[in-house]
């Protein structure tokens, strides 16, 4: 009614509609539209909400809302022994349970200066690189899925992932919630014949990657949709604390496997792929190239895998001296760190996870501003988040 009357009057509106801002643009008056994408939007990879303000189809403001999947991980961990948190780290980022285990085990080992036997270190590298394959292949699959290529590329990715998950199950007893690493080593040795099978899978992987690249990399639709979309400048990336493939896609050479050389990573020659522009296409390509490097590391690690024990001299009761420690690794998504404060008892006084997904998500608004809604979905896909890790 009021709207109508204002239109009839033909002059300035007498009653402003509430909740909308009127903006002037070349004589045409349009309303900003506020849209809540999620928490059950299929493109948000879980329960994640983006409150976007749209001018037509262009994003003018974007507010990420998360916390729907909060499970009290850190507080729970402070109320139980150190070992008890190990299975819960699997559930942070369910694609990368092996690397999560490793990061936590690394922090614990630092606390009590525990030596890890050679063989265990090599097996850890193998597992971590397999995890990287799983994570990146799934990211690429979902990313293309978000672009609108429903099904086919994602299912090819799932097929390859399945082979690696079978390997995980064989070695650790569970496909995704591996719970495989312990302070000072591994829970059990690799079963007989595992290595042969692993070699088969790894040797077949480059052929799959070739095929996959043929399928996607030159596809004009993908090029148009991803190039120069969501450009992340290196300065912003560094200031925001972005890590992992996303940082490297912006052209910053920073890989903890090289910088920290934790475990036995200093023994493997591999290259760190970097992007130039920092757009979605670079982020996508960096992951594909990283998979190729992972395969190189895997081959070498399997060739050099020494015999020997898989468990160091870990104490039966894990009771670190008072102090604080920060252990970090290069997870597939970025720097995954565990910050532990001990007060000398068998329970951590403070247990904090530095989740790469959450930190990488902080620049989402900067990436999306000025792009269309459909691009926001693509950009979110290229950031690579897992909500289990964002919310903890």
């Amino acid at each position, binding site marked *: 009614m009021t709207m109508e009357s204002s239109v009839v009057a033909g002059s300035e509106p007498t009653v402003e509609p509430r909740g909308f801002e009127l903006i002037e643009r070349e004589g045409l008056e349009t309303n900003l539209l506020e849209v809540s994408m999620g928490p059950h939007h299929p493109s948000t990879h879980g329960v994640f909400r983006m409150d976007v303000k749209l001018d037509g189809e262009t994003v003018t403001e974007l507010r990420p809302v998360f916390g729907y999947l909060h499970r009290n991980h850190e507080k729970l961990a402070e109320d139980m*022994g150190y*070992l008890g948190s190990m299975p819960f780290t699997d559930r942070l980022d369910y694609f990368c349970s092996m690397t999560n285990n490793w990061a936590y085990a690394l922090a614990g080992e630092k606390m009590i200066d525990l030596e890890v036997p050679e063989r265990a270190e090599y097996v850890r590298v193998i597992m971590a690189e397999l995890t990287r394959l799983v994570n990146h292949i799934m990211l690429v699959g979902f990313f293309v899925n978000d672009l609108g290529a429903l099904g086919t590329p994602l299912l090819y990715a799932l097929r390859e992932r399945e082979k690696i998950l079978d390997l995980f199950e064989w070695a*650790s007893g*569970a496909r995704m919630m591996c719970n495989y690493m312990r302070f000072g080593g591994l829970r059990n040795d690799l*079963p007989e014949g595992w290595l042969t099978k692993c070699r088969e899978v790894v040797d077949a992987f480059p052929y799959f990657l070739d095929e996959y690249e043929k*399928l996607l990399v030159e596809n*004009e639709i993908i090029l148009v949709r991803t190039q120069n979309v969501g450009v992340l400048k290196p300065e912003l990336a560094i200031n925001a604390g972005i890590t992992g493939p996303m940082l490297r896609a912006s052209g910053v050479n920073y890989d903890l496997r090289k910088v920290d050389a934790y475990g036995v990573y200093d023994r493997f020659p591999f290259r760190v792929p970097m992007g130039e522009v920092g757009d979605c296409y670079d982020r996508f390509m960096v992951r594909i190239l990283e998979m190729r490097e992972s395969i190189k590391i895997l081959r070498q690690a399997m060739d050099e895998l020494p015999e020997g024990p898989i468990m160091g001299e870990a104490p039966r*009761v894990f009771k670190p001296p008072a102090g604080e420690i920060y252990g970090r690794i290069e997870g597939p998504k970025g720097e995954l760190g565990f910050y532990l404060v001990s007060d000398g008892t068998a329970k951590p006084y403070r247990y904090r996870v530095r989740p790469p997904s959450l930190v990488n998500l902080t620049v989402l608004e900067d990436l999306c501003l000025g792009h269309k809604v459909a691009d926001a979905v693509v950009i979110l896909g290229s950031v690579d988040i897992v909500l289990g890790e964002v919310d903890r």
Partner: protein
Amino acid sequence: MDLLGSGIFKGMAVTLKNFAMTYFDRGRKERLPTVQYPEAGDTVTLFTRNFPFLIYDGEEEVDGMRCVACQICERECPPACIYIVKEKDENGKFVKRPKVFDIDVSVCMGCQICVEVCPFDAIVMDSEFEYSKEDRFGDLLFNRDELLKSNDYYHKIHPEEAQARDANLAAKKAADEAKKKAREEKAAAAAAAKAAAEKEASEKKDSPEASEPVAEEPKAEPAAPSENHAKAESEAKEKPAAEETPVEEPAAATDETEDAKEESSGGSEGKETSEEPEETAGSGEDDEKKAEEGEGVS
């Protein structure tokens, strides 16, 4: 890049090839054929773990149970889905066996922590995965008798692991026995010495009631198990981090009274025979006194 759209056609060729190949090399392993689950396909691998179960040795389910109700697993289980009540004999003394051992498998996450912390190799992981039940709460709470499975079954599902565990147990048992023997010998020697001393004393006194070593022996015998028990207890107390429990005794005493209270109020186990609460009531009073003392200490 050449012709616009050639990238798309290249991709299409890949999908077409994949599509066509599904008809030609079916069943080739690297193409990951579908497993026809209920009819075929054994998905159980070497370390497959699902939910834990309790092992018993021999034929008797309850008597052969390896679990001694030390409650370490209960304390260490991350989602706290194990519930244990120790069993007592009619004198109110603990026997090394759980009366109640419940695992809520709807909460259990199959993490195997309980298996790793159990010092008696009493609990291990099952590979059974077909649990469909009608009642979400009642049926998925497995009690002691449902959890008990034989060692033979364990050997069937995880042969290597089972053998390793058996060897481990045998070694432990041998070591224990050697220790026990040494202790018994020591006790016997001490008893003999004591008897000799007493004999001497009695001879000095010229009393006819010189205690024979035969009378001494039954005393020495039960000493060993109770010591063992105490050792297990103290292990149990120490292992998970020796928490806030200040002294061992008061904690044990309070435990006892809690159980006693539950029983005398007809609580946890419900309808037991009417004689039992009366019997335990007597010991319960004792325990309460002890507990009061214990509380005074702590």
